[in-house]
């Protein structure tokens, strides 16, 4: 989230699209209710299904799964055509005026530089024009046909309401009504908040869905302001923490990157991370990258990380591929290239696409280790459960070890919520049986591994032997010790650069925040964005002061928010070029003549004069990007692409299937279906009664939603002879499931390209362990392909067929 849950109460308009906040985030949704009740805010829901969120909405519109980009580009077109643009914001705080290279273009659904053989773009032309001084060229009058604004206008021109209706199935009158409601928030004193979740990410072009809305929000001036923002509703407790701490194969903590094999040494690595400002006088905060990186290396390897050793850079693995994401790992496993798989807090047998392939892959492992508080389907993948897990245990030789771990309520630590708040928690119960904390388990494995390297040697033992491990009890580092390490401390006494006699931080003391980190080896910090969370003031994550002066919703003294306890990112953009609040009724920060002050921690150097230093300090431009240069693999603007399995051909290019640069493994191509064989669109989702595959273990949740079902329209039910509550078979080219049928008015056929498109809704909470009735997950049906940028699997749009099931299912 750019903003916080509590800030949603400040909004005038909520759009829930690509998510189902009331259903999947009912507690956070209270802030929408609050905005509606006490501010008179309106709620728009755009979703293939009339959801529980839609049940309390002021406006609902259906949309065909996987066509959000067409809807959003249509919205941008409508805003431009009807002059619903926050011009001050667009001209000052976006790259609208930047000139784009002459050789950049878009044709037949593709941007310049496409190489079909490589399924990749040469992105060289996706860039600004630069002057001799190295700065980007601009036309502040927005007259130049090559400026981003005019390029954007041309790009969205095709997305007329008629065109949008034809692709998305959203009735034109509803589209136009929503456009009017959204357009009102282009005024400086009106804001809209976008709440989205996996309804946008789980597509082969998920990142572009989100960019589409981000661009719309920038055009409306709704980023960096109270009640605005792009608010990703994270789907797991602490999944925000997982990303922050870099638990992905291509990331290091704090969104630093893992080196690739093209960066064999420190100098090469740092050369591509200079982040030279692209406009004069801009902050380009990533210029501090080396401070964060060196401090991270010091936290990992202490005295072994020195300038002479390139800060132990050679200890870091170097990626030979963009990432070892879960799709790639299971592809490798399926090919027999993986011996051991550690599965910590993850249930891939139900969470990863194409379950049949996953089962085969797991069966090729020598060893599977599952760390989880619960029995998971993954840990029992070898066990026969009739139709629900039809395997032959005798044919599976994988050894499985289950390590029972504590659940969140049984251990201490911090959880990071969607709004980037780190909230400390304490155990509420003692863990049952032999369950141990994940930290204890990892420490035991590490200590034994290190001992093996000590006694037996091995290839490259140094990263293990030299890993810093100075905890009071090496067998179980405490949450407090780990948190303090993430905050970082001075290794030698830090003094004020302007007055060396003034001590800033004594050696051994916690740094105040990341502004004190150095790249000379005098500081260590495990995760720079968390720096400030546990400084010499103590554990700021444990703060529980819910005072909120003037009811701004910032709650500055409740827990701690990264970065720097800032509650709304880009909050400098809430003030105009003179530093005055753009909406006097909702001030956030302002320039007092000497410095920035206000209700939130300013997202700009506090003495940076307004009118010079622009608000988007992480971008070398200083402004936000309507045109994203080469930052994304599939285009600098979002363009409509069909899902890999779709009832319609791409209207721009009938040869194009799915996202033209999404990675597709050869063996999966033959498992993509066409609408001739599989005429209906499947989409997966959660229900309020359950949390993923966990709560089916809990009897009360099982009572509330006991059995796997699919949802279909009355029209599809009639067409296929399906009765409400009857059993149906749903199958795709990859697998088949059996479910109860919920026949509903809440799903209706959509008319796309002149033909009706039927949607089959498939919730995801059932498996073969737990208290609820045995069932299936949608991943039996879904294709093995992910987003072109981040590889999130395409769970939200795929093709299926459905028929009534003869006879009763095998219980």
């Amino acid at each position, binding site marked *: 989230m750019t903003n916080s849950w509590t800030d949603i109460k400040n909004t005038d308009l909520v759009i829930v699209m690509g998510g189902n906040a009331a259903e999947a985030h009912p507690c956070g949704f*209270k802030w929408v209710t609050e905005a509606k009740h006490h501010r008179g805010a309106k709620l728009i829901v755009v979703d293939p299904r009339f959801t529980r969120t839609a049940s309390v909405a002021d406006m609902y519109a259906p949309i065909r799964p996987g066509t959000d980009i067409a809807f959003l580009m249509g919205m941008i077109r409508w805003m431009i055509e009807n002059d619903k643009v926050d011009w001050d914001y667009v001209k000052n705080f976006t790259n609208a005026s930047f000139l784009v290279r002459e050789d950049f273009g878009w044709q037949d659904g593709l941007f310049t530089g496409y190489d079909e053989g490589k399924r990749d773009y040469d992105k060289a032309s996706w860039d600004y024009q630069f002057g001799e001084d190295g700065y980007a060229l601009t036309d502040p009058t927005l007259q130049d046909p090559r400026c981003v604004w005019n390029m954007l206008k041309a790009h969205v021109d095709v997305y007329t309401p008629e065109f949008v209706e034809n692709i998305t199935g959203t009735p034109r009158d509803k589209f136009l009504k929503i456009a009017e409601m959204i357009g009102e928030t282009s005024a400086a004193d009106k804001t809209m908040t976008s709440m989205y979740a996996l309804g946008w990410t789980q597509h082969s072009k998920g990142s572009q869905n989100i960019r589409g809305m981000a661009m719309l929000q920038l055009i409306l001036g709704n980023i960096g302001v109270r009640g605005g923002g792009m608010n990703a509703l994270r789907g797991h407790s602490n999944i925000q923490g997982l990303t922050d701490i870099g638990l992905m194969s291509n990331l290091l903590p704090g969104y630093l990157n893992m080196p690739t094999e093209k960066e064999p040494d420190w100098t090469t690595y740092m050369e591509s991370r200079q982040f030279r400002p692209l406009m004069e006088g801009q902050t380009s905060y990533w210029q501090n990258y080396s401070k964060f990186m060196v401090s991270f290396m010091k936290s990992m390897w202490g005295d072994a990380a020195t300038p002479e050793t390139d800060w132990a850079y050679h200890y870091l693995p170097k990626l030979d591929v963009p990432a070892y994401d879960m799709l790639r790992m299971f592809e490798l496993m399926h090919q027999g290239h993986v011996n051991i798989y550690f599965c910590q807090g993850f249930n891939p047998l139900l969470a990863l696409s194409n379950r049949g392939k996953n089962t085969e892959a797991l069966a090729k492992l020598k060893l599977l280790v599952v760390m989880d508080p619960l029995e998971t389907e993954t840990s029992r993948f070898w066990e026969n459960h009739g139709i629900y897990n039809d395997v032959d245990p005798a044919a599976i030789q994988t050894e499985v070890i289950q390590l029972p771990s504590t659940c969140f309520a049984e251990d201490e630590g911090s959880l990071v919520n969607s709004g980037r708040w780190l909230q400390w928690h304490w155990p509420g119960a003692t863990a049952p049986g032999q369950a141990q904390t994940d930290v204890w388990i990892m420490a035991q494995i590490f200590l034994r591994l290190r001992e093996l390297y000590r006694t037996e040697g091995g290839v490259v033992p140094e990263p293990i032997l030299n890993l810093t491990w100075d905890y009071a009890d090496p067998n179980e580092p405490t949450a407090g010790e780990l948190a303090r390490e993430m905050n970082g401390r001075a290794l030698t006494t830090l003094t004020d650069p302007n007055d060396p006699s003034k001590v800033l931080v004594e050696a051994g003391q916690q740094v105040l925040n990341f502004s004190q980190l150095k790249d000379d080896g005098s500081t260590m910090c495990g995760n720079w964005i968390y720096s400030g969370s546990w400084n010499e003031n103590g554990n700021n994550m444990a703060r529980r002061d819910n005072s909120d002066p003037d009811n701004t919703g910032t709650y500055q003294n409740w827990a701690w928010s990264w970065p720097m306890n800032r509650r709304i990112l880009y909050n400098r953009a809430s003030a105009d070029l003179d530093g005055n609040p753009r909406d006097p009724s909702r001030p956030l920060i302002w320039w007092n003549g000497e410095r920035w002050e206000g209700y939130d921690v300013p997202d700009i150097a506090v003495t940076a004069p307004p009118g010079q230093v622009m608000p988007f300090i992480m971008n070398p431009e200083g402004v936000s990007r309507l045109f994203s240069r080469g930052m994304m693999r599939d285009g600098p603007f979002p363009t409509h692409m069909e899902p890999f399995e779709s009832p319609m051909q791409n209207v721009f290019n009938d040869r194009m299937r799915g996202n033209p640069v999404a990675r597709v493994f050869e063996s999966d191509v033959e498992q993509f279906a066409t609408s001739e064989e599989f005429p209906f669109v499947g989409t997966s989702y959660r229900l309020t009664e359950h949390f993923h595959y966990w709560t089916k273990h809990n009897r009360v949740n099982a009572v509330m939603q006991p059995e796997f079902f699919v949802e279909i329209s009355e029209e599809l039910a009639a067409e296929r002879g399906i009765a409400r509550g009857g059993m149906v078979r749903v199958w795709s080219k990859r697998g088949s499931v059996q479910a109860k049928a919920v026949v509903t008015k809440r799903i209706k056929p959509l008319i796309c390209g002149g033909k009706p498109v039927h949607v089959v809704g498939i919730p995801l909470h059932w498996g073969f362990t737990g208290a609820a009735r045995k069932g299936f997950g949608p991943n039996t049906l879904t294709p093995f392909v992910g987003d072109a940028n981040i590889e999130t699997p395409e769970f939200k749009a795929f093709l299926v067929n459905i028929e009534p099931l003869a006879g009763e299912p095998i219980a």
Partner: protein
Amino acid sequence: MSTETASQPVTAVANPPTVPLAAGFDARDLVRISATTQQPTPERQLTPVAKLIDVSKCIGCKACQTACVEWNDTIPEIEENVGVYENPHDLTPDMFTLMRFTEYENEETNNLEWLIRKDGCMHCEDPGCLKACPAPGAIVQYSNGIVDFIHENCIGCGYCISGCPFDIPRLSQRDHTVYKCTLCSDRVAVGQGPACAKACPTQAIVFGTKDDMKAHAEERIADLKSRGYDNAGLYDPAGVGGTHVMYVLHHADKPSLYEGLPDDPVIAGTVEAWKGPTKTIGLAAIALAAVGSIVHNVMTRPNAVSVNDERQAGDIVDAAAPPDSTPPRRDQA
């Protein structure tokens, strides 16, 4: 919209923090006792309380159902899906409240509406169940409006079920007594609100004095009218003397849209006829109670341990580890 708002309900609202109601009521505050000739005359009058359910804020999450199960320690069956979202499929002796879902195509607006109503005891000011009950002291009403069942006095005749205009009480096959929502009388007695209201994430369920709840409802109704629901209103039906569980409805002119909420509930004529407030009939009630007991025994056979009882007992024992740490179940105490 005006920024002038009614004060926040003070209890049972998870956020902002709760302020307890004045605590304390007990048997001295009874105003009605079933099948008793001499109705009590308490020395004090408690402030009437009410639970307000704002259907327009409800997201159908079933947190209220879950909280109800947890607080009352009931163990409802894990049923099947029968093609709808209601689970269990009806109120049961182990499920005192239930979200009911109605898909309504509004012909005036051409919009689909998904009307979600939390069903359960309405705690009538004039309770049909209490009037119909032939068992002395099995159903009581406190001066704050709460209608409660006293299980040790219940004879399991089921007359309260037919006396209820809302079809709420359910007869347990396990102990042959009747169960329904107590408005968390045990929580309210110590200054807390009902468990369902505490758990509700959107404050669709709030609890407080009846006057406060009505004021809160007015504000909500004004908001709904501003959104085009011209017939928004409060459901506090006069036919049963008003209720201590009230609804804010978008379509207060058509309560029955909400999965059978009675448009104009009244106590059945037969119940009124033989349960008038006269001594004679009161005495007749005692006689009837005796008959009821006989009927009860004939109809239900002596209490025997059924397979179901055995299994449920097993569940309880299984859940209780270590055994001495589990409080006795409410319905067994």
